[in-house]
């Protein structure tokens, strides 16, 4: 299987590898996938007081495309608000990395990982995970 240059770059020089302390209030953790399926992604975000994602870390068990997809999204989410990060779509990831059709599931998993991390952060802070509950946010905060 031939990989695109971008996949190889992210695979060989993965960005933001590592872990944050899961129990830290500022951290949201998303873990998606299953070992039996051949890929598991753990994505963590650090969110500041203003609700902006300051930093991100990932660890991924999976093929080169899965590692590259998760590495890429750690770069993309940084500096974004939670709502902005929620708009990242797997098609953008697949396009950026020129993933072949058989590897599209890797980009879907990366999108799921972002959403899971944001959901985890919101739950920690008593925020509703879905956007239409935004009105409740002030009360909860």
């Amino acid at each position, binding site marked *: *299987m031939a*990989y695109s240059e971008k996949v190889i770059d992210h*695979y060989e020089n*993965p960005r933001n*590898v590592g*872990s944050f302390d899961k129990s830290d209030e500022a951290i949201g953790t998303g*873990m*998606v*996938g*299953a*070992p*039996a*399926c*051949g*890929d*598991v*992604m*753990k994505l963590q975000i650090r969110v500041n007081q203003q609700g902006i994602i300051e930093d991100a870390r990932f*660890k*991924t*068990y*999976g*093929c*080169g495309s*899965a*590692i590259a997809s998760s590495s890429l999204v750690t770069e993309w989410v940084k500096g974004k608000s939670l709502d902005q990060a929620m708009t990242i779509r797997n098609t953008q990831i697949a396009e950026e990395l020129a993933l072949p059709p*058989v590897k599209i*599931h890797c980009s*879907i*998993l990366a999108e799921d990982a972002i959403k899971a991390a944001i959901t985890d952060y919101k739950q920690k802070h008593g925020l509703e995970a879905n956007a239409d509950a935004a009105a409740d946010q002030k009360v909860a905060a």
Partner: protein
Amino acid sequence: MQLPIYLDYSATTPVDPRVVDKMVPYLRNHFGNPASRSHAFGWEAEKAVEDARAQVAALVNADPREIIWTSGATEAINLALKGAAHFYKDKGKHLVTVKTEHKATLDSTRELEREGFEVTYLDVLPNGLLDLDAFKAALRPDTTVVSVMFVNNEIGVIQDIPTLGDICRQRGIVFHVDAAQATGKVVIDLQTLKVDLMSFSAHKTYGPKGVGALYVRRKPRVRLEAQMHGGGHERGLRSGTLPTHQIVGMGEAFRLARLEMATENERIRMLRDRLNKGLSEIEEVYVNGDMDHRVPHNLNMSFNFVEGESLIMAIKDIAVSSGSACTSASLEPSYVLRALGRSDELAHSSIRFTVGRFTTEDEIDYAVDLIKRKVAKLRDLSPLWEMHKEGIDLNSVQWAAH
């Protein structure tokens, strides 16, 4: 040292230079059609084909008249299974084979199922070997053909062909053995083995691709229905002009195998054991398949918490095969490793190393060092490794299968 290092000899072998030298004159000068009976060009080609037939027969202690040329082991297996099943269909329409067989066998039996035959696919033990009692129990009065591979292509385990042959012969069942991975690796004596049909490939034993052979026993005689028609070559069993240069190559490759296999296999075993010893120093690695009943050149190992395809990408300086097929939409790991009862995780994490005639000790040492470093790097990237180190039992986690 030349990179990348080839450690995939079970996929194919380079053609031995001595084999190439024998083949070339049959492309340049002796181009005759072996079926041309009316001139010297044909006679010369025919002699070369018959000499090669004798060399192939000699490696497996058979009569040259029992060797039928084919385009490779896949065609030989198709001819054996479909040919015998069709010929004996009035006797019965049941076949028995094994879940860990090569796709050439499994796809042929699937085709026979579509034609109305019934096929039993036997499980294997966790070490990859057949359970002889389960084997006996699967045989029925209407079983006409049994097919078992001599050496498994993924895990290299050697099935008990002598015993299986005895069981089949007692019951009058045609016994086919896929020996594509066995020639030059294990001693094959068809005078003692009760095997009726045996498939061979040239390119797994330092011969060229595109040629193979089927052994068809004469005493007791086994009958086949031809699958390829036109011209009546190979005693009507396989029509088509014989590729003289390919056949000459297979003959020379098998002649060399017979002369050199005893010493060669000792050297290769030493290299494989060196590889195994080096890689076994890594934590959480598992050898797949029985280590005692195994060809000397195969090592199949799972590197827990590392996904096979990413490992192959990381070690691109060595050419190996993975048991993970992450390229398919279903993400199915190796069906052979699944049949051993390996978890999907370990099946996804497996690598097949096969060493061969041109592998050196330096190459093995380079491979061990590279793999150690890359496994460590990928484990640093692996959330599963992190959880394992935190003492979390991964089986206790509720994963969302996707």
